[in-house]
């Protein structure tokens, strides 16, 4: 079905126009989506339609529409609570033969899932659309949406796995010196043969999972691999450790000290609580590359859901500088503010499809890392450019 682009028509309760410029500030799109999710009827958001006084007046074609669709989907999945389920938020390209492609976001709230919130750092914004405006939801509106859970209905599989991951996160053993914890778990078990004869090689040669030998990854060359009946683990209790279970779950622990490489000035600091951006990017991406390799062999279904969670425990006082360490911007940026909370945790695990993990593991890892940058008060642009937004790959310079 071809959609009629509503040029000349006004914004209203179910229709919003945004210029192409808004793609530089995806939080604005997220606010509109949340506000429509918190209504009964939802609505449509047109991106690439400039308005004048609320009337759509001009088409602004979107370059690289496929990439932008991916960004919008990721942003909605990662910043809206609860994450939209299938069909609640769809993004599609609309081609105007004379002018180019613009994007249409269609919002169809599922009854009983709200209220929805937009997460910004540690804050939550509950917004609602009224006519063509957004307003904060009242206390009563918010609480009326939180109906007590029905105990007579069994939880669906996704919720069960989500709850399982949150419980695991709660039980992560304390580590006085801080810990990065990460988990990837398919909702439908792919039944990995974790004790297969060649499995230990993934923990010997990083290139077998697409990782750099010299990079920051889940392999510790001084440690061995230990198999149990339903799982295999590599690493040590006090160092980095990755555990694979036959239900496809991959759990990764890393002492926070391993995220320090050197100070911004190039030397070691007496109190090194500075995250080296390459470490923060590459460790999680390396684990997703492992997942991609494993799930690619035993994939249960391309569109099945996989959940991933990341937490940094004991992060208080640590800093993270913006930009790539290879850039002038990194060297000359103002000193970073130390993290103020004890722990950095996400509101909920992020959702991926198995296909995304198998085909674009780096982009999946990037989405987790983006959450960390957000908590430090940074935007996506502040993440090092070694993650190529176009190809979705993390590539370090090499001559």
């Amino acid at each position, binding site marked *: 079905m071809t959609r009629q682009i509503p040029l000349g028509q006004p914004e209203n309760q179910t229709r919003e126009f945004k210029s192409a410029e808004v793609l530089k500030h995806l939080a604005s799109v997220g606010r509109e989506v949340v506000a429509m999710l918190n209504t009964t009827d939802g609505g449509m958001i047109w991106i690439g339609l400039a308005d004048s006084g609320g009337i759509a007046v001009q088409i602004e074609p979107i370059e690289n529409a496929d990439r932008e669709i991916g960004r919008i989907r990721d942003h909605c999945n990662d910043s809206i609570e609860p994450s939209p389920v299938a069909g609640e938020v769809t993004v599609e390209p609309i081609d105007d033969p004379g002018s180019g492609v613009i994007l249409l976001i269609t919002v169809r709230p599922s009854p009983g899932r709200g209220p929805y919130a937009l997460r910004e750092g540690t804050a939550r914004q509950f917004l609602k659309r009224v006519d063509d405006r957004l307003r904060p939801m009242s206390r009563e509106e918010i609480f009326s949406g939180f109906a007590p859970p029905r105990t007579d209905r069994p939880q669906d599989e996704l919720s069960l796995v989500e709850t399982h991951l949150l419980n695991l996160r709660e039980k992560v053993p304390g580590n006085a010196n801080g810990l990065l914890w990460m988990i990837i778990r398919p909702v439908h078990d792919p039944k990995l043969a974790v004790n297969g004869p060649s499995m230990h090689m993934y923990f010997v040669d990083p290139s077998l999972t697409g990782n750099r030998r010299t990079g920051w990854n889940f392999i510790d060359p001084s440690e061995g691999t230990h198999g149990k009946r339903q799982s295999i683990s590599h690493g040590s209790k006090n160092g980095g450790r990755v555990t694979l279970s036959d239900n496809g779950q991959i759990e990764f622990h890393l002492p926070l*000290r391993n995220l320090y490489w050197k100070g911004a000035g190039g030397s070691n600091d007496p109190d090194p609580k500075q995250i080296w951006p390459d470490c923060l990017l590459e460790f999680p991406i390396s684990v997703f590359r492992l997942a991609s390799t494993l799930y690619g062999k035993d994939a249960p279904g391309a569109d099945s859901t996989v959940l991933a969670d990341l937490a940094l425990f004991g992060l208080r006082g640590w800093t993270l500088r913006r930009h790539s360490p290879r850039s002038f911007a990194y060297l000359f940026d103002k000193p970073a503010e130390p993290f103020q909370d004890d722990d950095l945790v996400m509101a909920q695990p992020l959702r991926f499809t198995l296909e995304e993990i198998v085909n674009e593991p780096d982009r999946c890892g990037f989405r987790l890392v983006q959450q960390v940058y957000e908590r430090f008060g940074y935007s996506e642009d502040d993440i090092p450019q070694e993650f190529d937004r176009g190809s979705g790959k993390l590539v370090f310079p090499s001559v």
Partner: protein
Amino acid sequence: MRLDVIKTVLEESNRWWSNPNPSAFSSTVKPVKRQMFDRLMEYLGERGARRAAVLSGMRQVGKTELLKQIANALLSEGWPPSSLVYFDFADPRLPAGVTAPEVADIILRDPARGARPVLLLDEISKAANWGAWLKQAVDAQVGNLIITDSAASLIRDQAIESAPGRWDELRLEGLSFSEFLRLADPRSDSPPAIFRARPNSLERYLELGGFPEHVLEADLGLARQRLRDSIADKAIRFDLARLDVNTDRLRSFFVYLVQDSGAIFNARKRARDVDADERSIRRWVALLEDAHLVTRLDRYGHNAAARLRSKPRYYATDHGLIHAFTPMAPEAIATLRGRIIEAVVFRHLREAAREVGGQLSFFRDDSGIEADFVLDSERGRFVIQATASADPPARKLERLQKIAHDLGAVQAVVVQGGRARQPDQWRAAMPVLSLSLAEFLLDPFLVLGDRR
């Protein structure tokens, strides 16, 4: 005018003469000290009264930094600043043809230097007549002398002319793996603890080599580029240009040799390969060895004459050179790792052999069966094989065991690219000591059954 320039360079190189506060200088010196530091400090004590220490090593391995650390240590311990002299004969501001006697004359004629100053003289071979002067200086006990240079042959030649026994030649290699780790994270003195916090250090070390400047380099490509520039342009084009040699051809030959690091050296065959005569090839390889760019390993033989007749192997002295000078073509990558691992094992075995007074060679019989290294020491003979494989096949280990048996070795050792956590049945079946590369590099004396 000439003397004024030398005096100015001296004043600027010895800022502690005008500002005796040690902290003004110490902030510019790296805090982590290499193992060689303690040995050099011995020459400032009783031993230094009778002999000088001449430290030689490849460019960029940290000779100058060691001299600065020694100066800093002396100043911190209260050594009179005016009796401490550092001078770099490669300082580009110096007039052409500067000689050791004229510099020494300026230093020693100044009464402020005291009766027996410490003289730290960098890149001595850039000075004319230094050998004769050093002989005289040691005999006259003008001071405690520590001298550095990048070229072994010059030091050796001067030593022969100037009567041996007046100085000891100490060789400074690139960083060992333990030193690399300690430079990467000076907060800890324990290399294994640092390695646990920085597990990718092993692969970085294999790729970057033992050059202190690059330990924390974020851009590995840039580090390799700098290494190529420093070695190819400075060590070959600058240092060796004085020896009346075609440096372009020498550089090409060096690249050829490094890309084939660890191969048996056949001068006649090499001459054909690079279109040169055999005599030139022999001279070139000697020059590269003297500049510490390549290191020779002789074939195992029951007597010295047999060793000399055999064809040796040549290794890149520092394994980082192999990576820097090998194009990253897919077909090269497959064998690159093996050559790097062999070179890095050789580098650590050399140091261990020097320490225990042992001798290293490689084994090859007439049928072509080989073992990478044979280490003869007072504790017996050890046969050592280095392999990139994480899981070497049993037949290779059986062959190694047979060589060890035939040579009457006390132990066969395999150093393997992956971890040495072999299945238990493998260990039980083969009485070969298996060490992971990381284990070995952290403590090379494990091959001798020691733990240090």
